[in-house]
């Protein structure tokens, strides 16, 4: 079990930036800030043009941790409280799930919910319940 500090202000501020980035991308090129769609689009681009903006967006995302480093003097904390097999099985399921579900936390959870899309609301409620049940079972029933 790993305790983590409650960080309401950082989390609220970080969340507001995530929301602002989604608004900006929509205003500039009319696209949804969904990690799943951006990744899928880079792996199998419809056209060269389609690849370029996504690659540039990814480059921007990759710069994020270094801006954080400049501002705070440290890299962002990444603590992984699960085993490597769990990381791999989890990653595989996330990849399958977001492709069939058509989005993830950013696409459905932020962009879709912000537009009150019924599909995104259903998807978000479903994956939040799925995650909650999984964490409960793993930590308190199985005891991983």
């Amino acid at each position, binding site marked *: 079990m790993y305790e983590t500090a409650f960080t309401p202000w950082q989390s609220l501020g970080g969340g507001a930036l995530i929301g602002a980035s989604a608004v900006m991308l*929509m205003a500039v090129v009319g696209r949804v800030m969904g990690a799943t769609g951006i990744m899928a689009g880079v792996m199998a681009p419809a056209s060269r043009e389609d690849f370029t903006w996504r690659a540039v967006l*990814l480059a921007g995302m990759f710069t994020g941790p270094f801006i954080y480093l400049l501002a705070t003097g440290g890299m962002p*904390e990444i603590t992984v409280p699960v085993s490597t097999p769990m990381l791999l099985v989890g*990653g595989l399921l996330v990849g*399958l799930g977001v492709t069939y579900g058509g989005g993830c936390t950013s696409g459905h959870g932020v962009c879709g919910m912000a537009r009150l899309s019924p599909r995104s609301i259903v998807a978000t409620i479903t994956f939040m319940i799925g995650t909650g049940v999984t964490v409960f079972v793993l930590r308190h029933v199985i005891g991983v």
Partner: protein
Amino acid sequence: MRLFLVYISGLVFGVGIVISGMANPAKVINFFDVAGTWDPSLAFVMGGALVVAALGYRVVLKRPHPVFDGTFHLPTKRDIDMRLVGGSAVFGIGWGIAGFCPGGALPVVSTGNPDVLLFMGALIVGILTAKTLQRHSASRQTAAFSD
């Protein structure tokens, strides 16, 4: 100018993700661990992101088109089906097991953190597998229709 602004959008997203704690599986899993070491921070991430996105979209989507594109590319699917619900449930299970979601892990790929890279590798295999399966079932359906 267009690509520069796209780059800045990605940068703001990446900074937001690392500040918020979405790139930290310990924090993500603790948000869902209400019965254990609960950390409610992620509710503030979701809240902050939703309020800004909802207000911002209201303004932006009233415009005839984006600054550098002819149309807004909004999702057109409307159906709530087993793919949506089943896929989202599987995503949720995977998120609960690994603690990373795609948007949380993507910006921190650049840190070279081995756990992030392992997760990303598995995520890409999952996406490619699902795409292949979808193509197969689509071509089966087409074949059935043409019979």
